Structure formats: C-alpha cells, structure tokens
C-alpha cells in the first residue's frame, strides 16, 4: 500500500526516513506544534515551496532543463488570484477564476518556452529564460495600474480562509515543541511547569483551513510527481537528461517530452503561486517574481538533492528555516560577541546576509549530491561495507545529479 503510494520510490536511508518523518509530522500537525505567527508563516511557506521546488526538480533534476522562468509562473499564479479577487471581490468564484486564468496564461507561456528550447539550447536557453523572466518582472512593475507595481497587492481572501472565520467554537489544545524542548533541556526537573508553559490554545480559524488546503495540495502534487518520475515517461526524461541526442536517435521525440515537462512544471508552480497568495494574503514582485527568489528555488533544489524529489521537501524546509531564523540566531550569538571590535561588526544581526551567503556557498560544497543524495550515498556505503557487492561497480542510482 505504502509502496504504491510512494511509487516504490523510498527514501532508501534510515536517517533520511527519520528526517522526512519529522518534517511531514511537523507540517501535518504544524499549527498544533508551533506557537506564533512567524512559525505559522514559515510552515505555510514550506508547503508552498515544496510544490514549487518539486516541480522545478522535475525540470532540472530529471530532465536537465535549466530555466530561470520558474518564478514567472509562480508569480502568474499569485497575481492571477490577487487580481481576480481584487476585481471580483473575495469569493471562492473569484479565486477559481483567478486560478484557471493563471493556469491558462501559464500554459500558453510555457508552451512557447518549450518551443523556444527547440532552437535555443542549454546555457543560452537558461539565460534567455532569465531575461524573459526579468522582462516579465519589469512588465508587472510597469503595469502598476492593475498590479500595484512595486508596492504589490493585498489579497482579500474569502472569509472562510481568513482569520475571522472560526469553524470550531472552542479553541483546541496545542503544545509548543520548541518551548518544550528548551524547557526539558534547561530544567528537566520541572517537567510539570515546562509542560504548562509549552501548552497553548490554538484558535483554529480560516487561515488554518487554508493551511490544511495547502498541505493537501502539496501532498497531492508530491505523490503525483513521484509516480510520474517512476513511470516509463519519467525514464524517458532521464534518458533526455543523460543524452538527448541518443534519446532522439532511439525514436523519442524529445521536444515533445521537454515541452510537456516545462508545461507541467509551470502549471504546478502556478498552482503553488495561487496557494502562496491565499496564505500570505499579499503579493508583490519581490516575493513572487524576483531573480533572487529564483536562485533560492534553485538552491533549495540543489541542497535537497537534484533528481530525488524528496530533496524538494528537505531542501525547502532547511532553506526556509535558515532564511527565517538565521538572523535571530545571529542576534543571539551577537549577545556574546558584543564588544569585540571586528567580530561584533561581522557577527551582528545586520550582517546576517553575509552568513547566509556563506551558508549558501558551503551547502553547495558539502552536499554536492544534496542532502538526500548524500544520505543515500552513506546508506549505500554502509550497506556495502556490511556485504560488499559481488564485484565491480554494481549500480544503484544514488542521487541523480
């Protein structure tokens, strides 16, 4: 059963399985395990980016199409909903119109992009998509009458998805894991009080509803993609990645496959964009269309492990956590380094970006195959040490980088 759901594509590493379980449980029970707005926002972003990154991985990891226009489709989804709601009022109908409209626009654009790849190849294609995405960004800024320009747009979500909607009369119990852990570490003798401190009331509202919609979307998208990459279709994609010329010579019309992948990936990104707009309730070019965001998606994909799909989960989680909490961490470190001349300056909260950049670079070095790939390699090595394979390089694809 599980095997069918996961399309027989298992994590293949105990550590990874554990890590994934932690993440999945945290996401599934998120609002009941983490107190506070920022934690909630962070959880929502992780769900959104799992979709975005998984779709990107389909393109990048499985087919070796490097496109920088992924954020464009993400933005289309986000703006589609924002503009529809802005124009038609905050009804589910408007949201639906927005999503369908956005999907249609994305479909056409991604089809064009797929066909463009017929003529413009590899790194040229990558850089062209970068420029196209940039042109799209500047178009959105320029059309401030309908897009709000650089100031962005507020998204007035249907009432059922907003904070005002309360499906349950009573608030539900929650237990804040960070507080609990911290308490258990610092004053384990005081369990009763720690427990008390850690419990909190969850006022389950429309935003939680929206959150669970997102969780469902992410789960569906992920399992669908997992099946896809393990199907005969997925194998052809790998063939194209490995040697497009030869795939063509075998009789596969690679353009058709490539275009299909670009479209599929774009549509998923669009959907994720719509989800983003609804949970974040605010869209602007910076957080939907920016080049920086594009690089971050790329990084999430690579840190997680290209061509593993599970990497999307791990990569987005790690990245978004770092992005949201690194500054706080530095602030905490900063307390201890205050007063030391240069160090104080370097370790200050104000230069968190510096350390973010350093982490950025280091993560690429130390996880060349991504976290998932690396864990699988270790698992494989451990297995081999126990019972070495009969002879020579018996293959088990590890990370498909």
């Amino acid at each position, binding site marked *: 059963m599980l095997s069918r759901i996961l399309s027989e594509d298992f994590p293949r590493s105990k550590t990874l399985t554990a890590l994934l379980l932690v993440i999945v449980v945290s996401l599934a029970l998120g609002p009941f395990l983490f107190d506070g707005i920022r934690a909630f926002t962070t959880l929502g972003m992780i769900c959104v980016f799992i979709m975005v990154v998984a779709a990107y991985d389909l393109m990048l990891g499985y087919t070796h199409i490097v496109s920088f226009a992924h954020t464009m489709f993400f933005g289309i989804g986000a703006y589609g909903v924002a503009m529809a709601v802005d124009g038609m009022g905050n009804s589910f109908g408007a949201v639906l119109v927005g999503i369908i409209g956005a999907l249609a626009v994305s479909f056409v654009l991604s089809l064009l992009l797929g066909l463009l790849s017929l003529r413009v190849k590899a790194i040229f294609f990558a850089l062209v998509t970068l420029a196209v995405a940039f042109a799209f960004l500047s178009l959105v800024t320029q059309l401030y009458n309908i897009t709000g320009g650089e100031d962005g747009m507020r998204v007035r979500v249907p009432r059922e998805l907003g904070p005002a909607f309360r499906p349950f009369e009573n608030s539900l119990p929650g237990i804040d894991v960070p507080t609990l852990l911290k308490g258990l570490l610092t004053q384990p003798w005081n369990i009763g009080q720690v427990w008390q401190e850690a419990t909190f009331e969850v006022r389950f509202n429309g935003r939680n509803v929206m959150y669970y919609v997102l969780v469902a979307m992410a789960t569906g998208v992920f399992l669908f993609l997992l099946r896809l990459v393990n199907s*005969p279709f997925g194998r052809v994609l790998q063939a194209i990645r490995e040697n497009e010329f030869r795939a063509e010579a075998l*009789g596969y019309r690679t353009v058709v*496959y490539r275009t299909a992948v670009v479209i599929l990936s774009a549509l998923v990104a669009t959907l994720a964009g719509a989800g983003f707009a609804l949970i974040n309730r605010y869209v602007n070019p910076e957080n939907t269309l920016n080049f920086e965001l594009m690089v971050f998606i790329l990084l999430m994909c690579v840190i997680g492990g290209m061509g593993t799909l599970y990497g999307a989960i791990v990569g987005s989680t790690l990245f978004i956590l770092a992005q949201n909490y690194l500054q706080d961490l530095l602030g905490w470190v900063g307390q201890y380094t205050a007063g030391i001349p240069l160090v104080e300056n370097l370790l200050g909260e104000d230069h968190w970006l510096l350390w973010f950049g350093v982490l950025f670079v280091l993560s690429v070095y130390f996880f060349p195959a991504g976290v998932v790939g690396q864990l699988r390699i270790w698992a494989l090595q451990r297995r081999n040490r126990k019972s070495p394979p009969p002879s020579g390089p018996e293959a088990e694809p590890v990370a498909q980088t």
Partner: protein
Amino acid sequence: MSSEQAVLETRDLTINFGGHVAVNRVSCQFHKGTLTSIVGPNGAGKTTWFNLISGQLKATAGQVLLNGEDLTGLTAARRADKGLGRAFQLTNLFPNLTALENVRLAVAARHHIGHVFWQMASHRRDLTDRAMEYLTRVNLANRAGYLVSGLPHGDQRKLEVALMLALEPEVFMFDEPTAGMSVDEVPVILDLIADIKKQQDKVILLVEHKMDVVRSLSDRIVVLHNGELVADGEPAEVIASPVVQEAYLGASPDQQPEVAHG
C-alpha cells in the same frame, strides 16, 4: 533481385560543410536480406553518409527513401520510428543509467510507451525481460546492473549494438562495431550480425576497416572516397580493384594481411 523494390535508397545525397563537400551526390539502393559493407579511407564520408540516412544531419541536397517513402524531411526520431536503426562509431549511450536501463529505453521506444506516466516503469516486467534478452545476445547479461560509465570500452560497444537490436529496425547501420574490441569479443558481434543476416528480411549496412571481417560477411562492398561513391560490387572484385588497393589499403595485396587486419 534488382527488380524488387529497394528497402533503403539514397538519391544524390549530398552535404556541404561550408565549402567542404563531405558526401557528394551518393546514390545507392539496398535490398532485403543483404549485407553491404562500406569502406573507404578515413574521412571519406562514411559516418556522414550514415548521419544523413538516419537524420542526424540535414542533407544539402538529395533524398533518403525507405520502402519508397521519402524520409528526407523527417527528424532522426521519426526515422528511427520508421525502422532505421543506428549504432554509433563513437560510443553514444546514457552514461549514468545502468546497462539494463539503457536497453529498456530502447525497448520502450520500440513499443511506444514513453508517454505512459501513470504506470510504474518497474512494473513492466515485459520490458525488462525483453531487455535482458538483448543483453544476453551481446553477452552482457552479467553486466546488466552496471552503470554504463563504469563499463570498459568494449562492453560499451556491445551495448551500443544491443540498443539497436532492441529497436527491432528494418535497416541496421553498424559503424565500426568492433573497433577497440578485444579479439575474444569480436566473434560475438560478428555472429550477431550473421544472425541478423540469416533472418533474410533485414538490410544491414556495415562500416568496417578490418578487411577480413568485410570479406567474410559482405554480399557487396561500396567504396566511398572523398565523399563520392567510387566503387560498388562483389567483395572480391571490389577489393581487387586498383582504386581500393591504392587509395584504401595503400599497399600491395601480399603485404596487407600482415598488419592491417585484426
């Protein structure tokens, strides 16, 4: 024999690389059940001619016909689909996939199931079994699980052939299939080619520099020189002709078996 329709035909096939005419108005017909060797000095245009036939290169002029149908405008993928099989001179595989997966891709292409995205690839036992069959035929069954990048050169050449077999084409194009293969492996490939020939309904084109191989397998030899077809006929006759002796073998007949043949 000549009354029967040719399976494969090239008509005035020509390609011009910025002034250098690598294949120059080559016209030739190939019939069912025959094996034609194509010989010629290095750079004569043999590989290029193959590329024109299988669609890797676009001809400057001329046509390619398969069973009377004009393939000239079609892409390589469409031609492969129509029954033109090709094994490459410089090994050209999927390096980070296993040998088995390589062949399975070819089988899947043959059976048109590349677009199936709802099934599990691993559930298609039929494909795997087929693929194993072809690996066995080229004596690679014991390497099925190896990544191609780790296979020694000779094994890669055999895999190249297995891929073509898996496509079950009507026309087989071998481009120096035994180059770099150790002596004990060569017969495997040669027997395989002989097997195909025995089926009587295929067309085989073979580019090969080893004259003993050519002599023992061919029904016919075609000689290319500077992109032009300069000789065409029975093996013994063609080999004996002065043009082959001088331009190709580059020596008197008594000298060449010494060194030139493996």
